[in-house]
């Protein structure tokens, strides 16, 4: 089904899709394909955000109609026009907006992606419900990855070992429950959440602040490629094939929370970008969770404040989070691994299942000598039962915790 009727995609006459739309924008005056092209080209103009776009379309009846008006009239409808918006509109009208739309679709295709307009069937439902939904999305990977239930996991770009560990556990648990992990591909917590979801064999969606053909940050290009290769998707509001343009983090953050039914802030200092995502989630009426941190940790200050101000629910464990979301872990534990562990290895794993800790602490708790402890940890790491961040603190992986306590340790 194509969600565009003569009365327009959002006009409410198309019962199948219009029913769940916020009907603020009347439909296109001309053909559906032309209106779609008009959306793509109009949305690519710098300074025309989701709100401005909706205002323009509602004022002139359709995007195609709007593009027939003078650039000045269009700019007059925008709440916050860029200095370059007028020039860009003029350029659009002179070179023909149909051609520009075609070029943008071609650029997306060249990058291996597709264009999804808010009126398309493939446009994610959760996002479509939002008042300030992006009119056009560029997607690399499987667009249907956006259709599944999703939870956003976000946090600081400069996490502590604790934050990375929590991000992994939470993303792992979410992914194993069959839920998509949405994040922003940023360094730190975001990247770790994507990675953990992939490692768990799950699905993850990265919302980019940059066009899909220019992955930001560049250091996560490999991760981005893996996300696409393993059934996930990269999403961006920014048109591809353009050389200029700064990464737009604020718009990115809004899409992250908008794609997800709940957002989890894992670790965020004061004034972290992740707090903007949290604010967006609240504004969008979505559930917000935060992982608490030590009271003396700068990296957790933002999270702790969200909890203290009753803005976010406190996450006590990955499992409790899923429970609160009404989900449960799908995978069942396998126990045969435990049978092959030596006494020392079982002892170490048992201690780590109770509480993660440094080698120093483990030595005291397990009464093992350092050499035995070091070799046991390597073996447990090799079997995926134990992981460490930076080789300082070790923790039992979720796989290990599902197996349960092989041995009780004081």
């Amino acid at each position, binding site marked *: 089904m194509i969600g565009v009727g003569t009365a327009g995609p959002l006009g409410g006459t198309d019962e199948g899709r219009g029913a769940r739309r916020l009907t603020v924008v009347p439909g296109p005056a001309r053909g559906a394909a032309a209106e779609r092209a008009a959306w793509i080209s109009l949305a690519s103009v710098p300074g025309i955000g989701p709100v401005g776009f909706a205002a323009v379309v509602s004022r002139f009846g359709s995007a195609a109609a709007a593009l027939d008006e003078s650039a000045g009239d269009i700019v007059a409808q925008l709440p916050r026009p860029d200095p370059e918006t007028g020039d860009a509109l003029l350029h659009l009208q002179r070179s023909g907006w149909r051609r520009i739309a075609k070029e943008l679709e071609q650029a997306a295709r060249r990058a291996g992606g597709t264009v999804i307009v808010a009126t398309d069937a493939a446009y994610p439902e959760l996002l479509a419900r939002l008042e300030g939904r992006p009119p056009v999305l560029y997607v690399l990977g499987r667009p249907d990855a956006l259709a599944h239930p999703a939870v956003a996991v976000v946090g600081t770009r400069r996490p502590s070992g604790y934050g990375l560990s929590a991000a992994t556990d939470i993303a792992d648990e979410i992914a194993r429950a069959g839920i998509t992990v949405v994040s922003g591909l940023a360094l730190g917590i975001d990247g770790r959440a994507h990675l953990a979801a992939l490692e768990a064999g799950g699905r993850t969606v990265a919302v980019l602040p940059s066009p899909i053909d220019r992955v930001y940050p560049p250091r996560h290009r490999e991760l981005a490629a893996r996300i696409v290769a393993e059934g996930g998707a990269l999403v961006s509001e920014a048109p591809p094939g353009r050389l200029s343009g700064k990464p737009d983090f604020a718009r990115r953050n809004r899409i992250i929370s908008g794609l997800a039914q709940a957002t989890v802030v894992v670790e965020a*200092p004061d004034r972290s970008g992740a707090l903007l995502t949290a604010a967006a989630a609240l504004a969008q009426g979505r559930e917000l969770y935060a992982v608490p941190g030590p009271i003396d940790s700068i990296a957790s200050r933002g999270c702790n404040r969200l909890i203290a101000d009753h803005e976010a629910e406190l996450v006590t464990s990955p499992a409790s989070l899923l429970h609160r979301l009404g989900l449960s872990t799908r995978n069942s534990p396998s126990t045969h691994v435990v049978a092959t562990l030596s006494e020392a290895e079982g002892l170490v794993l048992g201690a780590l299942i109770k509480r993660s800790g440094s080698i120093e602490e483990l030595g005291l708790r397990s009464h093992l000598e350092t050499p035995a402890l070091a070799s046991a940890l*390597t073996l447990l790491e090799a079997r995926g039962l134990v992981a460490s961040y930076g080789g300082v603190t070790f923790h039992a992986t979720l796989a290990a915790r599902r197996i349960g306590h092989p041995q009780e340790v004081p």
Partner: protein
Amino acid sequence: MLSEMLSATVLGVDGVPVQVEADVAFGLPSLTIVGLAGSAVQEARERVRSAIRNCGFEVPARRITVNLAPADLPKEGTSYDLAIAAAILGASGQLGLSATRRCALIGELALDGSLRPVPGTLALAAAARSADVGEVIVPQASVREAASVREISVRGAASLGETVAHLVGLRELPAAEPTPIPDWSAPIGVPDLADVIGQPLARRALEIAIAGRHSLALSGPPGIGKTLILRCGEGLLPPLEEGEAVEVSRIHSVAGLIDRREPVIRRRPFRAPHHTVSTQALVGGGSRVRPGEASLAHRGVLMLDEMLQFRADALDALRQPLESGVVTIARVEGALTLPARFTLLTSFNPCPCGWRGSHRHACLCEDGAARRYLARLSGPLRDRLDLWVAMDEPDLRDELDGAEPSSAVAQRVRTAWRRQVERQGVGNAELQGALGDDAGLPSRLVGLLRQRGRRFGLSPRRLHRVARLARTVADLAGSEEIRQADIDEALAYRPERTA
């Protein structure tokens, strides 16, 4: 009239015999020194003139030419003074007509004719022995140093006068007793592992590093004892073997870093240059090549605290000695090779603020700052560091006590060291060969090692290093056979875990 004396010079860390010829001829009075003589040698003219006069001899008012052979070898330093003076006296007939004793002469002259010691006397005496002269005369202060060279008669002289008396057979200088190789005694003022709070993995890694001569990298926030642990390494070093003792002493003699009364070093060197050290000072070089810290650490430890603060080119210059145990210095006159087989102990902060990866603190660095900081360590150098330990603040200060003292660890290190020497003659870190063959791994464990390598994403070069580490772990346990647990422990020190 012509006269000829033998002296020696230092090239790198080796002594090379130098023939000193003097000719006194008719002509305007002058004293010319030829044979690629450097500035210190040119100044010998003034010292030699005064010394000869003040010892009651005279400088002939003739045309005097002194040649230092081989003439293509650049000569530096003051060790030829004595030989030049004696050759001039011989050429002007002041030593009498009887054949003078054939011996090598080493020493710097004071204006009053007394002899001053010169650096590298040990190497110079060894050069004299290689030139097949029966005896060598050295400044009195350097007698014990020179006498640690065997198979040559060493005599100490206080002045040019005494030397001449000996040469003409008037009053023979006594031959020095061969300097015995001293017993080893524990170094003083070295911190003890018992004083280190916590950090079990770093302690253990230090033990393995010293026992197998593997290189070590400790990273972690400031103030948690990285430097202290590295410094403890000095207390774990076993004594130098006798052959090594003379070799090491010679290098230190050339650098002028020797105690002339106790010239033979038994303690393994432990060098900790400051991070402002120049490349030349670190690996050696200069117009007159001097051994750098890398060579001074030969058979011992080179400790680089805050390694990332060192100049990048200085660090990169360490690649060759880490790989091959020598430093090659290219000169216009040809390449010089200095021995530099050391155990490298390093520490660094993981980022500019120091808190990256810490469980208790958040890193406060800008994005990418940590990466740029760590990039100062080049890939090839990173590859050559065997043991990596990421340290964090100990969180259980009160509960930690009774840490093992250095003496107990040193005992294990010595045993492991002996096993390596008896089995293969070199440290485990120097083993060569195919994966597993080098360390004597059974094929089952080679398979396990490969499997672990795939799991942890280790390079083939890293696997070789792990195999050698496992060999040392087994040696520390007193076991000839390497067990799986030894490999697993060796893998605990992989750099990928600390990344």
